[in-house]
């Protein structure tokens, strides 16, 4: 097990090194892009009906769009998980906890029958 872990450790270092290099390259490219686009900053300002908007107010954040797709994809799963299980209502929780206890009891009766046989 240990040689494998050592190999994984070595691989991990390589991954971290590559990521660090990529990160530095990305940082440098952003700086370069900023230097090029600075002069056009005025043109990129968003306006709505003559009002100046902050970039964060101009649309849905990219992350939110991504999660919306995810939620849509697994809608029925999330509906069950959130609206039936995780309601935040104590009596609903206790119902599921009680069900768990009943399942445990049935399992132990089965084990005891198996033992008796």
């Amino acid at each position, binding site marked *: *097990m240990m040689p494998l872990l050592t190999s994984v*450790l070595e691989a991990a270092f390589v991954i971290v090194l590559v990521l660090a290099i990529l990160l530095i390259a990305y940082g440098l490219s952003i700086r370069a892009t900023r230097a090029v686009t600075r002069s056009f900053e005025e043109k990129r300002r968003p306006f709505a009906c003559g009002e100046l908007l902050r970039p*964060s107010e101009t649309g849905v954040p990219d992350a939110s769009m991504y999660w919306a797709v995810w939620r849509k994809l*697994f809608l029925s799963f999330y509906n069950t998980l*959130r609206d039936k299980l995780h309601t935040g209502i104590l009596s609903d929780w206790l119902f599921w*906890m009680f069900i*768990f206890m009943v399942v445990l009891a049935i*399992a132990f009766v089965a084990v005891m029958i*198996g033992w008796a046989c």
Partner: protein
Amino acid sequence: MDSTVIAQMAAFQPFLAIASAFVLPLLSLAVKERTVWESFALTITTVNFVLSTLLTYSLYASFTQPLIYAFGAWPPPVGIVYEIDRANALMGLLITGLVLTATVFSLRYTMYDTGLQYYYTLLLGFEAGMLGCVYTGDAFNLFVMLEVTSISAYGLVAFRRHMPEAVEAAIKYALVGATATTVYFIALIFAYGTFGTLNMADLSLKLRGSTLPVTLSPPGNVFLGSAIFLALTFWTFSLKAALAPNHFWLPDAYPGAPSTFAALSSGVTVKVALFVLMRYLFTIFRDAPPAVLIVQALNYALIALGTASAIIGSALILLQRDIKRLIAYGTILNVGYIAMGMGLGNQSGLTAAFFHLVNHGIGKSLLFMAAGAMVHVAGTRDLDELAGIGKRMPLTSAAFLIGVLALAGAPPLNGFMSKLLLFMAYLETGWLAPLVVVIVITSVLALMGYLKAFYHVYARQPVKDISVIKEASKSMVAPLLVLAALCIILGLIAPLFVSEVISPAVSSLFDYQGYASAARSFAQAIFGGGR
């Protein structure tokens, strides 16, 4: 150092914490200075951490057998004893270490709160309860210490009682927690009726046709009694550990509570519950002829419920907008991994589970405290409103990122190493090997969820003016950096740490003969007799 002194060192820790918890409110009547209360709590938690470090070092360096401390010099099974081996010494170190970091973090984190003497009282009571739970060798004393922990925890959840959600969460948590401890109490009635003892070493001996001095053979049906006791105990501690479907309380309890409580509860209390299950399943009942089938059934239950927890936690982590709630669902996910490792019931599974238990304890405390620092300065838990504040808090953000990557399982951090061990343990099993797919998929989902949190707090454009926000104070950042450093170090030295620290702890968990014979030798020295 003499074994008696080492054992006294263990017994002194919960005593010191609980005695200080009683002294602090009295002290606050005489001295109204909050720095005095803070210094008092800091001193006690530091002393406990030092004692715990010495205890763990001594047990690893000098002792192979568990050490016994008999309260009032009443030997087992007549009196209550603490029985300390490498496993619970390591748990004690984790508890005292995390409580110390939380206390340091609290110094500035609670600067806007009132009634701080009660906050530290509850914190010290919480530490005493958790230490008692892991050190005790008595099933009823475990119940008492569980209550000490729980009552302190309910108080800490409701500490900010001006927030309606904190009060609601505390009421729900208290009702669910009280149900759990009552169920454990009923389990103890069955155990006592069956075995005529509640001493853990005596229980393990009686299951194998032997006894400690003074007590007699079990008066009840051992198979039936073991089955009922283990079923009820399993239910209780699966609730305390937030294992699905007994996990509902956890995401509701943390958002309204102080982040220090969330860090400690998620980092330690949940782990203490899992440790108690390990003690019962793998030290006391494992391989005992009447309980083989029952333990086997519970191992399968652990695998099934662990898998369910991992799926539920990873699915819901993606939906959260409340940063503390998001991290809380990560706890449910990781508890699932630990349960899956425990369910294998062998050395490699339990080694992976124990290592992940330690890693998750450190990583989750780090995440909750880092999130707490951000919430403290921004005044909101909403990820949208926290947008961009990470850039104003570079050190906190760096620590948060390390915590995120560690818990998501990025190499070479500690979380990756323990997940790798779990992965390998499942590959060795044969027919359960397909469950590695669950580990991989849920890890990817967790990475997406955690990175979403980091993306929001660091990379997104701010939605409000954050120019006044500054880095958290030094006493808040220092514990974060220490925990972040631990995540990196434990990852880098993982092979050494596993072979020198985790494996011996797991071996002592499996060593029921050593556990029982330590208590028997202690009792025979006074009473003589026994079989």
